[in-house]
Each structure stands twice: as structure tokens, then as C-alpha cells.
């Protein structure tokens, strides 16, 4: 046998080995997933420090989302067009110290629900009696989400309701009822919006409002002039809705200033989040866009500047559907999580975890996508996600929901979807050209992800092992300590599905501390205030958010897990007024109420 023949044999063996590699990797991955998915309750708590039990029905929550029925010209693709609107936000609207749940509905004539916490473990829907239920009509549009913030600083959280339709502002009348103040607030007549957040961009102590359009605002989805309302591109669409920035004038009205201040794009916004990413004292604005790149706006308090491309987050276009921030390495800096699409065999975009690069800061900060390195990349057709310390071990974990259209389990629309989305803009932008869905699923019945953070840069998905095993079409996720027990429960709004409440049983060995802030010079909701907790040589920073994730708002109260035997070193609060407050008497295992020092 000469050397060429030997080389040929070796080559053939290596060739076969390489071809078999994907199959072997898949088997190893499947075995690992299986190992992680099998655990009983006590084993899950022992192993992961957390277990969830879905308790919605047993605590008095019986809510099922209804989708809208839009113009009949869209009948053939209705399930994918009318695919959003299930949203959840957390508020203590009556200031009784117990968090309540507001959930949106989207069917014409359907009712939104406000679940008041009865303080006895159960909830009662009081939306109708306080005037927040009957808000979904074809003439004025249907709900897509709601965010809470005390825009007039009277101590009670008001609610902004964004729709595919007329956005509405309701004033909270001392926790007893809500008054519609939309006209006084000078809000636009129609916006097809899927994201909004409260934040005080100019630090004047009054909450301002960002609102992001999805479909163009001149489209009435119930009365289409024509069918050319779809995105002009799957990755580069710029024919979506405009963005709005409403400056709070302090007298109950708002001035729209987006273009004047540098926010002027028509990408298809689906999520936004605002936080002080550079340590300037001003909240920057991150927008996740569907059918395109994300946008990052630096804010100097007076003007916004789009820097997505320079900072590294705004170059490769994907299908941004979520924006959440978290200090996942306890480094005092925020990473940004953006969800996208991953469908086996068709489209592997992968979710993005934008992490600030070591050695870069301020205006020069550079972000790297470390989703793959940290194992938080592949979800499915992903929507809402939130960071929170689910097992109180001192590291922020990540809860992600997936699933787009669950219809016929045996019929799949992906082939037709991939066919049309690859086409020219004239083809893709006209709904009439889209093949009929005919009851087929599109990334339906997908598993969720509960990624636990090991603190050293790796996350492990333990969703099924810890009880998060529903396969509804998840949209909006909110984290909240529903029963004041010192753990984060999870509330999930599902499209055309039930509102789920996952009650958390965390390991009692791990300790925690909460902060309930109230601004004085800053806005009274304290939205934008940052709390830095230093313990056992570690630190973690969190911000009070006026909306995050996908169409969601977590509890305003900030929850920090501290792990075992914590020794609290210091707590700093950075208010949006610019003041810094150091707490000497913060108590572990309690909700620490803090009013901004004057």
C-alpha cells in the first residue's frame, strides 16, 4: 500500500467523521437537555434553588386573551398579522403595598383585566369597576400593552394604554377609579404601537413618554385602503410606524418632540428600554425593531443621538422583539437582551445579548453579542424576556417565552413564509401576495427558557425541570413578588391563551433585599433611579423601569438576591435628579422603603 492509498483511507475516514459530526453533536445536546429537564420539585429546588408552580386559576385569575379580527383582506394571513396584544404590567395601583396585575385583551369588545391583590393569596378583577376594562373597539383600536407611571406626581400610578388604534392615558384617582385624560394629554389620534415606556429623559422630575409605532400610523387595520401594509423587507424595512417622544409639560399635557430631539425613523419598533448606560445621569434609549436593526440613542438630557452602528448593536438586522437590561456579571454595567427568531432548518438568527466590552466606557462603549458564549442564544420564535434573580443566589437569571402561531400541529407555514420573505420589496410588502396560512402553525407549541446564571458567564436552561413547561404562544413576561415573600414570581401573557402565574418556591437558604423607591425632586415613581447593592465583595446595579421586555412592565420595586450568608456592605441610590443617597440601615430580608432625600 503506497502512501497515497493510506492517505486516501485516512481521508475517507475523516470525511465520514466530519459528516457525522452534526449528528453526534445533536445527540450530545439532546442528552444534556434531557438530563436538565428531569427533576421533581424538591430535587429542582435542591439543584437549582427554584421551582415554579402555575397557580393562576387557584388564585382567582381566569383570563384568556382574544386576538382581533382585522380587515377581511387579511383573512388568509390573519393569524400572523393579529399575532400580538397579550400584555402584562405590574402596578400597586391602590398603594396598599401589594402588587396588582393589569393584563390587556385585543378582541373587539373584549375586556382588559386589573387583578387587585386581595392580600390573602388571591386576586379579583376590578378593571370594570375602576374604568379600565372596556377599552377595545374596532373604531378606536384594541390594546397592545400598558405601562404605569405617576406622570403628575400625585402618588398614584397612572396608566398609558397603547393600541393598534388611539392611545389612551388614564389618570389614577387615588386608587379608587381612573379618569380618561387622553385629550388633555394631546395624544395622537391613531398609532399602531407595540411598545411604550415611561422615562424622564430631561431629568425635570416629570415622567415623559416614548411610544414606538409598528404598522404605519396611517394604516387602519380594520379598514384597509389597500393591502400594501406589510414590511417592505424582512431585514431592512423602513416603512413601519413613526416614533413619538412626548415631553411632559407638567400641566397634564404633553408635547411631541421626537423629531426635534433626534428620534426620527420608521423601523418597525417592538420593544424599548431606557436606562443610564454610560453613567451620564441621563437615560439612554434602546429600541429593538422587527425586520431590521436595533437603534441605540444616547441622551444628553436635551438631545438624542443614534449610535447603534458605532456602538455595535445596530448593524446586523434581525427580528428584534424584546429589550431587557440586566447587570448579569455583577459588574455594575448593563447588558441588553434582544430576542429574535430561531427555527430549525429555516432561520437561525439567534437572540442577542449585547454586553459592554471590557475597557470601553462612556460614549466610546462597544457592545459585543455574547449570547452564544453565555448560552442564551436559541429560544425559538422568541418574544418577551426579563432579567431577575429567580433563585436569589445573587446572579440575574433570564426568563424567555417563545412561540408565534400555534395552530395545526402537523402543518407548517414556514416554507411559504421563507418563500415570500426572500422576495423583492414589491412582493413582500403586499399582503395579497402572501400565501394563505390555511390553519398551519408558524413556530407554534414552543418550549420556554428559564436560564439560570452561574455568575461566571454561563446560563443553563432548566425550564422544564423547574416547572415552566407550558407551550402557549408567549408574548409578555413580567417579574413580581406577588405575595411579598422575597421571591420573584413570573406572570406570562399568552397570545390567544391564558394568563399564567408561576408561583416561585426558591431555596430558603438564599437571602434577598428589596427596595421600594419614591422620588421627590425626581419623578415620584422613581423611574430611572438606580440602586447599587454592595455585599460580600460583590455589587449589582438595577434600575427602576418604566417598561421593559416585550409589552411588559415588571414590578417597580427592585429585588436583589444575595445568596447565602450575605453581609451587606453598602447601598447607593442614584436618583434621576442627580442626587446620590447612601443607605446605612438597609435590612436584608425586607422591603426597604426609601424616599428621596431632599
Amino acid at each position, binding site marked *: 500500500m503506497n502512501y497515497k492509498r493510506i492517505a486516501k483511507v485516512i481521508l*475517507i475516514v475523516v470525511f465520514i467523521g*466530519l459528516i457525522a459530526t*452534526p449528528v453526534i453533536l445533536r445527540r450530545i445536546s439532546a442528552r444534556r437537555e434531557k438530563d436538565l429537564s428531569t427533576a421533581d420539585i424538591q430535587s429542582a429546588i435542591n439543584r437549582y434553588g427554584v421551582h415554579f408552580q402555575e397557580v393562576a386559576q387557584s388564585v382567582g385569575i381566569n383570563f384568556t386573551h382574544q386576538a382581533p379580527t382585522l380587515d377581511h383582506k387579511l383573512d388568509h394571513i390573519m393569524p400572523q398579522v393579529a399575532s400580538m396584544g397579550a400584555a402584562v404590567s405590574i402596578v400597586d395601583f391602590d398603594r396598599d403595598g401589594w402588587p396588582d396585575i393589569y393584563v390587556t385583551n385585543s378582541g373587539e369588545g373584549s375586556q382588559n383585566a386589573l387583578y387587585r391583590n386581595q392580600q390573602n393569596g388571591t386576586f379579583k378583577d376590578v378593571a370594570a369597576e375602576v374604568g379600565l376594562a372596556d377599552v377595545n373597539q374596532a373604531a378606536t383600536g384594541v390594546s397592545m400593552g400598558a405601562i404605569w407611571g405617576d406622570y403628575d406626581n400625585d402618588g398614584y400610578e397612572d396608566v398609558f394604554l397603547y393600541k393598534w388604534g388611539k392611545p389612551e392615558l388614564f389618570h389614577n384617582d387615588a386608587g379608587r377609579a381612573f379618569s380618561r385624560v387622553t385629550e388633555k394629554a394631546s395624544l395622537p389620534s391613531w398609532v399602531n404601537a407595540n411598545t411604550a415606556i415611561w422615562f424622564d429623559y430631561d431629568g425635570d422630575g416629570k415622567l415623559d413618554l416614548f411610544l414606538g409605532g409598528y404598522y404605519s400610523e396611517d394604516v387602519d387595520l380594520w379598514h384597509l385602503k389597500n393591502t400594501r401594509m406589510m414590511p417592505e423587507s424582512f431585514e431592512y424595512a423602513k416603512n413601519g410606524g413613526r416614533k413619538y417622544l412626548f415631553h411632559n409639560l407638567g400641566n397634564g399635557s404633553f408635547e411631541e418632540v421626537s423629531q426635534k430631539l433626534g428620534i426620527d425613523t420608521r423601523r418597525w419598533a417592538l420593544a424599548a428600554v431606557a436606562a443610564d448606560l454610560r453613567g451620564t445621569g441621563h437615560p439612554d434609549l434602546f429600541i429593538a425593531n422587527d425586520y431590521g436593526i436595533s437603534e441605540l440613542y444616547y441622551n444628553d438630557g436635551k438631545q438624542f443621538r443614534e449610535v447603534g452602528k458605532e456602538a455595535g448593536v445596530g448593524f*446586523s438586522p434581525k427580528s428584534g422583539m424584546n429589550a431587557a437590561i440586566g447587570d448579569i456579571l455583577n459588574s455594575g454595567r448593563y447588558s441588553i437582551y434582544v430576542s429574535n427568531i430561531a427555527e430549525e*432548518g429555516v*432561520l437561525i438568527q439567534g437572540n442577542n445579548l449585547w454586553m459592554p466590552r471590557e475597557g470601553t466606557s462612556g460614549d466610546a462603549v462597544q457592545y459585543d453579542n455574547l449570547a452564544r458564549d453565555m448560552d442564551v442564544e436559541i429560544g425559538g420564535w422568541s418574544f418577551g424576556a426579563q432579567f431577575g434573580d429567580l433563585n436569589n443566589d445573587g446572579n440575574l437569571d433570564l426568563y424567555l417565552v417563545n412561540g408565534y402561531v400555534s395552530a395545526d400541529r402537523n402543518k407548517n407555514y414556514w*416554507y411559504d413564509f421563507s418563500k415570500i420573505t426572500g422576495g423583492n*420589496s414589491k412582493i413582500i410588502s403586499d399582503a395579497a*401576495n402572501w400565501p394563505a396560512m390555511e390553519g398551519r402553525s408558524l413556530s407554534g407549541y414552543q418550549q420556554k427558557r428559564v436560564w439560570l446564571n452561574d455568575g461566571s458567564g454561563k446560563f443553563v436552561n432548566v425550564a422544564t425541570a423547574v416547572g415552566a413547561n407550558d407551550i402557549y404562544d408567549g408574548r409578555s413576561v413580567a417579574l413580581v413578588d406577588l405575595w411579598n415573600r422575597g421571591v420573584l414570581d413570573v406572570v406570562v401573557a399568552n397570545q390567544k391563551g391564558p394568563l399564567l402565574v408561576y408561583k416561585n418556591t426558591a431555596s430558603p437558604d438564599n437571602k434577598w433585599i428589596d427596595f421600594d423607591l419614591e422620588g421627590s425632586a425626581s419623578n415620584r415613581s422613581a423611574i430611572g433611579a438606580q440602586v447599587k447593592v454592595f455585599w460580600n465583595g460583590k455589587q449589582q446595579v438595577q434600575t427602576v423601569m418604566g417598561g421593559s421586555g416585550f409589552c411588559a412592565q415588571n414590578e417597580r420595586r427592585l429585588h436583589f438576591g444575595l445568596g447565602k450568608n450575605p453581609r451587606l456592605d453598602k447601598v447607593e441610590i442614584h436618583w434621576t435628579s442627580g442626587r446620590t443617597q447612601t443607605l446605612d440601615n438597609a435590612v436584608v430580608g425586607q422591603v426597604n422603603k426609601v424616599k428621596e432625600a431632599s
Partner: protein
Amino acid sequence: MSETTTSSIPAAELRRPGFRFDNRYIAPLFLTFILLVSHLSYGILESYWQTGLAIVTALAVELILGRIFFGKWLNLSSAYITGISVGILVRSPAFWPFALCSAISIMSKYVLRFKGRHLWNPSNFGLSVLFFLAAETVAGLSIQWGNYVAPMLVIWVLGSVIIWRARRFHISATYVISFFAFAFLRSWITGDPWQSEIAPITGPMYQLFVFFMVTDPKTTVKTKWGQMLVVFLVAFAEFIFRLMQVVYAPFYALFIVGPTANLIEIWWQSRKANRMAETTA
């Protein structure tokens, strides 16, 4: 993709005083141009590193295997085309599929041979294997040149010029005409809008497929009419796959039809040669 797309161009090289340009480099240069322009304009690549990995792997494997089996350092333009094609067409957040696909593609030329000819277009083989076996990690190119008409037309025109110079325009033209005919037939059968059936060919994946994959001189049959017949059959196989709702229909169609045609041609030529030898004897 095309192993040596322009290798069939007459040996004549473009000659300028003091400048010699080898026609074999037209296709690699064109592909590099497409890649850079589309990435700088539309960010089509997962990252430079992944595309770089695909190219470097293809070059390295070609160098090593060429040295071992042919005893010389081979011209790398063919391997470069394979690498850059993999770098453009593979979409995966992971790194390993880029290296694996390039390695498999190049190795297929050395392993899957019959009577001195390799049977599969290298990148078509690598991509088909990966799409089929690593679906959970790998997908095909989904990002378009903005879904706009202008960049699409520029690439169609430039690609046509290059392929005309390579005397293989008839292959691309036959495929495109066949695709449209079958698209309208599918629309009639399925009831889907005809616009949705022609939509795929307006995207970049097809441009690369039409200009650089189905035209590969090393893996197409020799006669002009044979080439046109084979590419028509590729379009027909794709038509069948599309009726079965297979996403990567064109790749799988070429994967099956191309080597089959090559084998038939090799068998036919061998039979002819034997008969001639018998007659002579």
C-alpha cells in the same frame, strides 16, 4: 459553489503592457465584491470572523490535500470560491458549521470521485449535508440585499456578463426560464399567488446559485445541449421539492440531479470509448 467557474474560459489572458490578468480570478473577485458591498451596505454576514474561517478552512484543506494527492500546490481560486460561498450562504451563530462546511466541501472533491472526475459541486455538497444534518444550528442565507430592485439588477447584470465571458450563460438562462415556468405551474397547482412563487429567485441566494453553482464546469456535463437539459432537470427536481415544501429545494435538486447526470455521462463516454476500442481492435 463553482469549483473553477471560469476555468473553461480560453486560456487567453487579458494582456496589458506590464499587466497580466488571469481569467480564473474573475469569479473570486466578483464574489468578493458582492460580499463586501452587500455586507457594508446591508450587513449580510454573521461576522467577518465566520466568513474568514470558512475561507481559510477551504484554502487550507485544498492546499494540504492537493499536495498529498497531486503532489503540488494547487491554484487556490477554486477553493476560495468554495470558502467565500460557504461564508455567504451559511447562516449560523456558531463558528464550527463554517469550518465544517468548507472542509466537507473541499474534501468531497477528493473522496467522491469516479473515473478521475469529482461528482458534486463542492459547496453544493457541503451545504446540502449541513442543511440536512445540522438543521438545528445551520440555515441558509436569509438576509437579502434590502429586498430592493437596484442591487438585485446590478448583480444580475454583472453576473450575466461574467458568465457570458465564461461561455456558460446558456446554463444560467435555461435555469432561470425553467424556474419561472415551473413557478407559474406551481402557482396554478397550489393556488398560491404567482408573486410568491417567483419571490425566491429575486433574492441573493438564487443569484449565487444561478451564476456560480449550476454552471460549475467540473461538475456539469460536457455538451451544450446536455448542460441545458441537466439544468432543466435541476429546475424540475426543484419544482417537485417545492411542491413538497422543502425550503432548500434548489440545493437538494442540484445535489441529486448533478451527480446523476455526471455518472450517466461518464458511463456513456466509457461505453463509447470501449466500443471504439473494440472497433479499432
